[in-house]
């Protein structure tokens, strides 16, 4: 009985099983179709979409920085170039702990401990996958040090990059400028994309003013990366065409500057603080633009440390300060040719007018005495002699007769009180005083009045009147040109680095002034007279001339410690000495160079500044410069 039931069950169970198996097979078939449909959707219908995504996954665009343009002097000598340098770079996203990594790098002396915060900020200011240089220009020993510790620093590596190099170091540093790390301030006015892959930007001088020409156009390269973002080198079918956009190198700059003249100027200044500006009056070419003391721009490209920078900032001689463009000083007697010309143009004085110089001048109706600055008394002097021998008494009187309004207006025509329009930035306008200026500049009503005594001082370039060495050089070139001028230019052209095509800039006209040839002749005679006979510079700059020079000395009284200098008791005596000026152009009949020299606290113009000017002119003229 039981066996019978069991057998019946067997058949029923088998049929049931077969039925279920068929249902199961059906479900399997249905699920297989579903899977197939899914695969077709992914691989056929949405294939293009996923191809794009996978392309985006594996390709990253890496910027290729354009080589920065070279800077060459007028003779073709390279003064700023790019050299391969080893630098330590860090990729934030590959570094486990940024702070700790930087600290450990500092511990093995690869980055200065004082700069940890700056390095950290620098890294954080870049995208997480950017390779950021935390230390530039490693020397061989430092490279070896890192090689030993390399395994401790994932995400940090040594890379070769082109670094800016200035083969002549501090020479002409204020004119050339330098490249330094892009600051937060810089980021505000540059196109970040154009500077990806670059960490440096031109600062000051030519490097800053011609940044656009020098920078060039960055290229880019598509690189194959893995999921960690590391670049991988794998040939084959992964990426058949990785695009590369070749960078366009920046233009080379051709300076108007003559390195020989510049060298002479800086060597002549030596350890003294001062400035030399030499201009070709024929086109505004700046032949030399020196400010001493200087500093080595290479330290900035290398990555200046906080300590080094602080030392530069705190130096009492202020090496970072560009005296040529930004230093403002009383002009002293160098302004006398312009005052004389004003007297002639306004017909206040006749060439033949003589005055008797007894060494002291008294304003009519006043007891205040204005003394001859230098050598007692000149006796009876005419206008030419007054310039040549720098007779203060003569110019006290002349200034008084001209009056402040006419002096101020006439000096304005020479460009004083404004910028010369030189092609590099940072120049200061100096100060051209006038009645109106005084009204605005002072708060107390009794100070707002222009006193006649101030006009008298103005006549010999003392008082409120302040000029920069550049302004004086520009003014000298106008005197040399008999009234016309060109805007001073440090760069005279650009050169295409690829095909060598040179594009010269046309000189731009600057300020001008009108006077008759006879009037000019008198001023010229005065300035030439200064160089010979009883002239103020006859014994110094005028000795053994092989060409005619027209010059003028100047001695600027130091009224107070200038330019926000820190008061330093020990230095006071030296630093209260007069500033020494000299302006000159030569050859007098057909000028090819106009120079202004300033030596801070250098004493008399004839002894401090004039010999320097002579050396500069010799350097240019004796080799036939500008001929």
């Amino acid at each position, binding site marked *: 009985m039981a066996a019978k039931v069991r057998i019946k069950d067997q058949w029923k169970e088998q049929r049931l*099983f077969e039925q*279920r198996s068929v249902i199961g097979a059906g479900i399997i078939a249905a699920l297989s179709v579903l*899977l197939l449909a*899914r*695969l077709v959707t*992914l691989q056929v219908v949405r294939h293009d979409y996923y191809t794009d995504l996978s392309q985006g*996954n594996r390709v990253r665009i890496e910027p290729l920085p354009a080589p920065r343009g070279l800077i060459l002097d007028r003779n073709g000598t390279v003064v700023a170039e790019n050299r391969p340098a080893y630098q330590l770079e860090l990729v934030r996203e590959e570094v486990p702990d940024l702070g700790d990594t930087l600290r450990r790098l500092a511990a093995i002396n690869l980055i200065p401990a004082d700069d940890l915060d700056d390095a950290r900020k620098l890294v954080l200011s870049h995208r997480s996958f950017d390779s950021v240089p935390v230390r530039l220009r490693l020397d061989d020993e430092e490279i070896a040090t890192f090689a030993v510790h390399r395994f401790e620093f994932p995400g940090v590596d040594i890379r070769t990059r082109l670094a800016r190099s200035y083969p002549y170091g501090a020479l002409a540093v204020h004119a050339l400028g330098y490249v330094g790390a892009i600051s937060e301030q810089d980021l505000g006015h540059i196109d970040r994309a154009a500077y990806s892959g670059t960490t440096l930007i031109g600062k000051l001088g030519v490097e800053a003013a011609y940044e656009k020409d020098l920078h060039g156009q960055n290229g880019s390269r598509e690189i194959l990366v893995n999921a960690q973002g590391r670049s991988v080198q794998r040939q084959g079918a992964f990426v058949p065409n990785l695009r590369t956009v070749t960078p366009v190198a920046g233009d080379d700059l051709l300076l108007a500057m003559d390195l020989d003249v510049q060298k002479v100027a800086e060597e002549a200044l030596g350890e003294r603080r001062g400035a030399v500006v030499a201009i070709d009056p024929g086109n505004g070419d700046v032949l030399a633009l020196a400010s001493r003391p200087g500093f080595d721009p290479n330290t900035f490209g290398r990555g200046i440390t906080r300590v080094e920078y602080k030392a530069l900032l705190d130096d009492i001689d202020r090496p970072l300060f560009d005296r040529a463009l930004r230093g403002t000083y009383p002009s002293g007697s160098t302004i006398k040719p312009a005052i004389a010309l004003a007297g002639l143009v306004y017909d206040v004085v006749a060439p033949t007018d003589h005055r008797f110089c007894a060494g002291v001048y008294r304003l009519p109706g006043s007891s205040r005495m204005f003394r001859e600055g230098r050598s007692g008394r000149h006796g009876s002097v005419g206008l030419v002699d007054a310039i040549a021998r720098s007779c203060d008494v003569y110019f006290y009187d002349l200034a008084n007769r001209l009056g402040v309004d006419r002096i101020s207006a006439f000096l304005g025509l020479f460009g004083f009180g404004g910028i010369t329009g030189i092609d590099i930035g940072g120049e200061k306008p100096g100060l051209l005083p006038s009645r109106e200026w005084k009204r605005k500049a002072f708060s107390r009503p009794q100070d707002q009045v222009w006193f006649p005594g101030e006009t008298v001082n103005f006549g010999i370039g003392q008082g409120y009147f302040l000029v920069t060495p550049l302004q004086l050089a520009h003014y000298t070139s106008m005197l040399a040109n008999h009234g016309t001028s060109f805007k001073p230019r440090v760069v005279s052209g650009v050169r295409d680095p690829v095909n060598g095509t040179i594009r010269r800039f046309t000189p731009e006209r600057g300020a001008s002034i009108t006077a008759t040839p006879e009037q000019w002749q008198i001023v010229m005679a005065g300035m030439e007279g200064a160089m010979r006979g009883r002239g103020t510079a006859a014994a110094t700059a005028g000795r053994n001339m092989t060409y005619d020079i027209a010059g003028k000395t100047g001695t600027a009284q130091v009224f107070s410690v200038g330019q926000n200098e820190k008061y330093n008791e020990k230095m006071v005596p030296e630093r209260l000495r007069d500033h020494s000026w000299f302006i000159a152009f030569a050859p007098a009949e057909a000028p090819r160079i106009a120079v202004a020299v300033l030596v801070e606290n250098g004493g008399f113009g004839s002894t401090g500044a004039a010999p320097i000017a002579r050396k500069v002119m010799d350097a240019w003229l004796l080799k036939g410069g500008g001929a």
Partner: protein
Amino acid sequence: MTFGSIDSSYTRRTLTRSARALASLKVDGPLLVGLGLIAIFGLIVLYSASGRDIATVLKSATRLGIGAVVMLLLARVKPGFLRRAAPVIYMLGILLLVVVDVVGYIGKGAQRWLDLGLFRFQPSEIMKLAVPMMCAWYLHERPLPPSPGNLLVAAAIVFVPAALTVAQPDLGTGMLIAIAGVLVMLLAGLQSRVILVLAGITALGAWFGWSFLHDYQQKRVLTFLDPQSDPLGAGYHIIQSQIAIGSGGVFGKGWMNGSQGQLEFLPERSTDFIFAVIGEEVGLVGLVLLVLLYLFVVGRAIYLAMQTQETFARLLAGSLAMTFFVYVFINAGMVSGLLPVVGVPLPLVSYGGTSMVTLLAGFGILMSLYSHRKLIRS
């Protein structure tokens, strides 16, 4: 007489001889060929997916070899022995699972292995076979379709080891264990109304069980529903594997040329996500070929199951055949974005684990059940 006829008779003789050899080994020829093709396909893909690491391929081949030996041995074991052994293996498995859970609890972390010194042993793997065996053993003596009381006992047989495995925590394997057992019950002729009720209970259980899932398990389900919600975190796997498959297109990027896999965008490319590597490098053509091979194996296995005569053999063989498909579908489904990410390897292709050996052991049992059948003439 032509060369052709000589040739064909030679071929026939050779085939007959090998068929006899296989029969004496109790091995099913077509199934063996199908499994072999999948294994070879898998090794070729693994070479590329492992980044041309021949050591990985050799290790995997060794495991396949061990699995094959286990399969051949099991094929020779008589089904009666397997049936009698089922409860013993099952109880032993439960014991080991409890030990692993306790050790894991003490060690405060996921614990799936027992370290036996020589090798690490994963008791949940045994359960993949022991649960359907036990289930089939329990049901084969009872009238089918099973009564509600029997059903309850069978459900308990399935539930206990599945729950212990999920607690390890290993959601994927726990699920697979449960599926293998449930399939036995379904094949035994579960009434459709009971199926509906069970489906309802499962849904309810899922809703209730949600709170018992670990954070990362919940996250997996959530990201399955919306992978873009966390593209760099939990959704990363799904997004990258779909990019890999989709960018492969119809013919693929070429063997060893899949950028997603080779550049390591695709995580776990040689293990759970190897299906995506195939899709990327060999394209739709490769995937369809592989799926067809799997379907051939599943189909042959179901056919074999239907040929057996005993209830125990039928239920166990049927369950093993369909479980194999479930493995394939869950892995392919999760990699292609049809299912949430659960750690289920692609059978015979994914690198690693004891699962390869277990799978082949299952096929060994299947072959034994088929080849030891009594040939009854009607």
